[in-house]
């Protein structure tokens, strides 16, 4: 069945706001995680790792933001970047918060809050990646003439 021509064609003039919004929400969740991370009053983290951690988080957020801007204009490659970033967020749950809990430098509640932030961030980034991949693929195929639309049937 042919797809509605206007629903695809309008993508040429409209930004992928939903993918952008998901990516930004993922970024915000990471910011909350970032704040919780340094809120912990423990010596566990007061080492050279702290500097690396700060730089890592800043770079991570910068890449998320740039990817969010790019997926807004249907750049499909950046949806792959978002897939990777989402994966990293899920992976991070088992890195610092988990290790800190095992070392008993954070409480169970603090671990839970931080894990939730990372999980939420990962989920939003995953949504953003899926949405942008789906939209940009449709637009790409439409522009290549590979999608049959209602306008073709007229």
């Amino acid at each position, binding site marked *: 069945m042919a797809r509605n021509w206007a629903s695809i064609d*309008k993508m040429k003039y409209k930004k992928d706001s939903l993918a952008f919004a998901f990516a930004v929400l993922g970024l915000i969740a990471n910011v909350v995680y970032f704040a919780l991370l340094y809120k912990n009053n423990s010596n566990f983290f007061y080492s050279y790792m702290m500097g690396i951690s700060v730089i890592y988080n800043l770079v991570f957020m910068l890449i998320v933001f740039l990817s969010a801007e790019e997926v807004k204009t249907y750049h499909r490659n950046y949806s792959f970047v978002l897939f990777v970033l989402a994966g990293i967020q899920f992976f991070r749950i088992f890195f610092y918060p988990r290790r800190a809990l095992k070392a008993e430098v954070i409480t169970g509640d603090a671990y839970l809050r931080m894990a939730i932030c990372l999980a939420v961030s990962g989920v939003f980034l995953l949504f953003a990646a899926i949405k942008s991949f789906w939209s940009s693929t449709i637009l790409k195929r439409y522009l290549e003439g590979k999608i049959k639309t209602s306008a073709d049937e007229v």
Partner: protein
Amino acid sequence: MPKVELIGLKKIYDSGVEAVHDFNLEIEEGEFVVLVGPSGCGKTTTLRMVAGLEDITSGRLIIEGKDVTTMPPKERDIAFVFQNYALYSHMTVYQNMAFSLVLHRENSNLIHRKVLAAAEILGLTDQLNKKPKQLSGGQRQRVAIGRAIVRNPKLFLFDEPLSNLDAKLRNAMRRELLLLHQKLKATIIYVTHDQMEALTLADKIVCMSMGHVQQIGTPLELYYKPSNLFVASFIGLPPMNLIDVEVKADRIASPYFELPLDDKRKQLLKNHVGKMVVFGVRPEDIHEHGEISFRVTNNENLGQSTLVHGYLKNQKLVCKFRLWTNYRPNDIIKIGFNMDKIHFFDKDTTMAIR
């Protein structure tokens, strides 16, 4: 039934200034009506009253048989195109054109179709992703027009839309507006102080001065049959030459010339014999090789024609000759008037004598 009726519209501001006085007009479906007049004559105020942006002091405004005199602007289904475009600079052309439809919560696919259709008509298809600052003045004005078109309103109002454009672009846009009107067959009220715009665009011209309607008619009527001295002097570029003359039994006389009257003119002026009237002749109705002495002050060569400025003794006069002439200052040439095209106006009432 006329599409729009303005019945005795009057606008008096709080300060007591009467901007529009007893304005009556009937506009038919698909008609292009131009309000023309000098600055401050009340044409924009009239337009704003039609749009609902100004309260109507008295009178009635009827659109498609419905009295909308006190109706708020948003309920009148009218599109207004402003002189300064009034585009949203942070939005793309597409978003600007779609904006009013988005506010009305129309289906996004339908909005898309309407915007593309309007962009196609206006030649903006390639500009839809650009911001207004990336466009030329003419393109911006087309976006403003496009924003009006997508709504498919009952009535389009244009308030001096070409005033911000340079002369060349204005000519081009004028032609585009004319073509657009032919395509859309929309009912349009257009305000301008540029008589060339009025003469080229209008089906019907309303000539205004000091809040009063001076004449309503087709461009040809206003040009060839001006109803009074104001219209005669306002319409036409350069304006009509106006000279005081005395009516004699068989001729008209002035300190500069005497001209015999044919039977038709004698009949026309029979009630003015012995009185002063105003004699009017358009510059293009003056020809060389006549019998009246004319002292040249300067030429304006326009390519296809030449405007020759000068004096009949101390009466200033402008002639428009078809050929390229190179008269020098203080040359004395002989001119004559095309007697079929002359006009007479009552000196007291300023009305045309017909």
